[in-house]
């Protein structure tokens, strides 16, 4: 649907290349070795110049601004404020690198947007290495006006990957539940928005509460718990078609669905046998396998990326803590020991850490547990965080937190350096879940 055309590198730096070739052959005295051990840890400076526009037909979105926000939100980049830009080139031929070198900005993004005859837009962007004076990458994309935000996120992903070597996760989505109160009654909605919180679309509306949305690994379905009919049931809904099916409707509690990485199973919490326990259901056969036993409450299962184990919350030790258990069952191993409350754990994409809610003296904050050294690091300063989930590239954690207007979406970089609320939503936002990468 979006055409992507890779732009060829401009030949403007032949002179520079020639100079390099000359220095290559030049003989020199013995090299001096210099150790550099300090530096300053920080976001990499980048200049994102507002895209050039055709007069008379402005696009509905500020592409450069979306890219700039995406990069900033990641915590890895520090975009130059537009007011500090020394010049605003939109064509490669008009770039004066020395302007940006003076600012010490190593990366430069320029672009332009042209309206096509059929109403679509052609968006072109280039990423330059300012110091070398060379183009790092560049693309031309065509899209409908309503696709422009997504185009911008895709560009952010390209830039992010070119500069960090890691896949970008800007062109992904988040699911979350909103509660709208009108007098005595509340209405609930399950929404899916862009990763920056923009472009929310409702996928389900209900008078009954909706909780625990969970993405299928291919990003095509959402499982969730709905209290329609006065009792909780687990549904799986196809996002493209809107059709849904009941997954679990056992007596008692049906909750906390979690898709296995291969998408064939769903782990869930059921109390059909009297007590809240973890079960694994084979989706195709609907066969259930009980994973945990005992008098304690076991809930909130989450799969390890390799699908071989799960973590869950249990109060078997007296307080809610995180335990790990093999997907084939057996003994559970306690993972959290710090504090009297740890819950809602999810694995990072690399499986090396967990995001969880850490309770301490009445506050509930988003924290990361390093599974290797067992260090727990609290990332936020808010007081009522819930439902943390990793971006599919592991660079950020999405969570819901309570602000003055109720629950809101917020994101924090995994190193805790950058925290910000996402685009304001209507109503009280809860239970966010970050989608997987889009399938190609």
């Amino acid at each position, binding site marked *: 649907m979006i055409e992507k055309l890779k732009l060829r590198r401009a030949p403007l730096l032949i002179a520079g290349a020639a*100079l*390099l070739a000359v*220095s*290559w052959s*030049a003989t*020199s*005295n*013995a*090299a*001096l*070795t*210099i*150790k*550099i*051990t*300090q*530096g*300053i*840890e*920080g*976001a*990499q*400076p980048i200049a994102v110049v507002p895209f050039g526009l055709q007069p008379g037909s402005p696009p509905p979105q500020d592409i450069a601004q979306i890219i700039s926000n995406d990069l900033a939100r990641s*915590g*890895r980049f520090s975009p130059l404020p537009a007011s500090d830009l020394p010049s605003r080139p939109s064509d490669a031929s008009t770039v004066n690198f020395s302007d940006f*070198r003076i600012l*010490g900005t*190593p990366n430069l993004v320029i672009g332009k947007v042209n309206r096509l005859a059929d109403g679509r837009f052609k968006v072109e962007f280039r990423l330059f290495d300012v*110091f*070398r004076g060379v183009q790092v990458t560049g693309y031309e994309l065509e899209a409908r006006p309503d696709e422009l935000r997504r185009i911008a996120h895709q560009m952010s992903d390209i830039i992010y990957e070119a*500069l*960090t*070597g*890691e896949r970008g996760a800007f062109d992904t989505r988040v699911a979350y539940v909103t509660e709208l109160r009108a007098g005595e009654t509340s209405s609930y909605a399950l929404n899916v928005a862009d990763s920056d919180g923009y472009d929310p679309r409702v996928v389900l509306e209900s008078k009954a509460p909706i909780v625990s949305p969970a993405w299928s690994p291919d990003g095509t379905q959402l499982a969730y718990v709905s209290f329609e009919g006065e009792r909780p049931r687990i549904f799986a809904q196809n996002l493209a078609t809107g059709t849904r099916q009941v997954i679990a409707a056992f007596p008692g509690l049906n909750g906390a669905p979690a898709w296995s990485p291969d998408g064939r199973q769903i782990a869930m919490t059921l109390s059909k046998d009297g007590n809240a326990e973890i079960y694994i259901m084979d989706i195709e056969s609907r066969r259930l396998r009980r994973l945990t036993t005992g008098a304690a409450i076991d809930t909130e299962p989450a799969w390890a990326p390799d699908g071989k184990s799960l973590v869950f919350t249990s109060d078997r030790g007296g307080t809610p803590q995180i335990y790990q258990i093999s997907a084939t069952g057996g003994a559970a191993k306690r993972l959290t020991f710090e504090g009297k409350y740890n819950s809602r754990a999810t694995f990072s994409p690399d499986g090396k850490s967990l995001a969880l809610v850490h309770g301490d003296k009445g506050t509930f904050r988003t924290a990361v547990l390093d599974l290797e050294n067992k260090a727990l690091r609290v990332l936020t300063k808010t007081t009522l965080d819930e439902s943390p989930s990793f971006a599919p590239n592991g*660079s950020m954690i999405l969570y819901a937190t309570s602000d003055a207007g109720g629950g809101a979406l917020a994101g924090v*970089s*995994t*190193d805790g*350096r950058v925290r910000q609320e996402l685009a304001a939503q209507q109503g009280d936002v809860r239970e966010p879940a970050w989608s997987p990468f889009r399938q190609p």
Partner: protein
Amino acid sequence: MKPRELIDRFTATTLAIIVHVVALGLIVLSLDYSTPGTPHRSQAEPMKAVVVDESQVAEELEQIKKREEKKRKEEEKRARSLERDADKARQQRREEEKRLNELQRRLAEEKRQHDLSARKQREEAAKALAEVKQQRARELEELKKLKRAESDMEQRRLADEAALAVLAAQNQALAEEKRKIEEARQHADAERKRVEEQARRATAAREAEEKRLAAVAAAAAAKAAEETRKRAEAEKKRQAEEQRKKAEAAKRKVEEERKRAEAEQRRKQEEAALREQLAVEQAQLDAQSARLRDTLLAEYIGQIQATVNRNWIRPTGAAKGLKCTVKVTQIPGGEVVRVVITKGSGNVAFDRSVENAVLRSSPLPQPKDPSLFTRDLIFEFEPED
């Protein structure tokens, strides 16, 4: 022996007489003893004769006879006793004699023993004497040895002295040489004096001659003589002058030679000292220059480090332990014309931050000493934490 017998007999006789007298006296006194005790009246009363009973007298006579008998017996007994005593004395005398004989025998024995021990002593003394003599001989031998050693030492001492003498002689020869030089100098002086004296004497003689000639010869002769004299004088003067000049020339030559040698020696020494001084100064200069160079190089590296550190923005959230090595080429002026990652960290963001840090630092600081400029630099980026 006889006198002893005589004395013995006399003693026996005397004793017998004394015994008889005593017996008589006792008879007389026995009358008074037999009368009963009556009070004595005064002496004026006449003595009255008392009649005595006849039986009493006979009894008394018997008593006396008995006493006489007893006395005689006692006398005999005493004589026998005396005889026994005499026997005893004789016996004693014999024993005495025997004792004397024994004594004499013992004395002889003692004398013999004494003689024996005396001989022994004499022999021992002789032996000791012999030993002493031997000892003495040994000591004499020892003494001889000592004397020989002494003589050796003496010889050595003499040799030493001889060596010393040789040294002294050498010294003396040196002194002699010195003295000779001095003498030569003195001799030259003396010669000069002698020549002068000769000249003086010649002059005196000439004057005398002149006077004599003046007195004797005519004025013409005087003139001729004067001429002759003048010639002789001139000749003498010339000769003297020549000799003096020769001596002086020789002296001057020696002096000059000495001075020249001294000057040469001095010059050489000064030259060597100068060369040494120059070498020392050069070494100091080299060391100073090397130190300066080191300091400047450290300063240069420090400036580059400071600049690059300031320009290095390490990516956030990067793993620990990353290291990236780049080869940097700069041109005079410090402009970085090339940055090549020679050993990357494997982390794109980290490696880019490294490249950017170097490029951001262009132009790199310049060394104070342009010779320190190095075209190629290797940077090792490795955060300390």
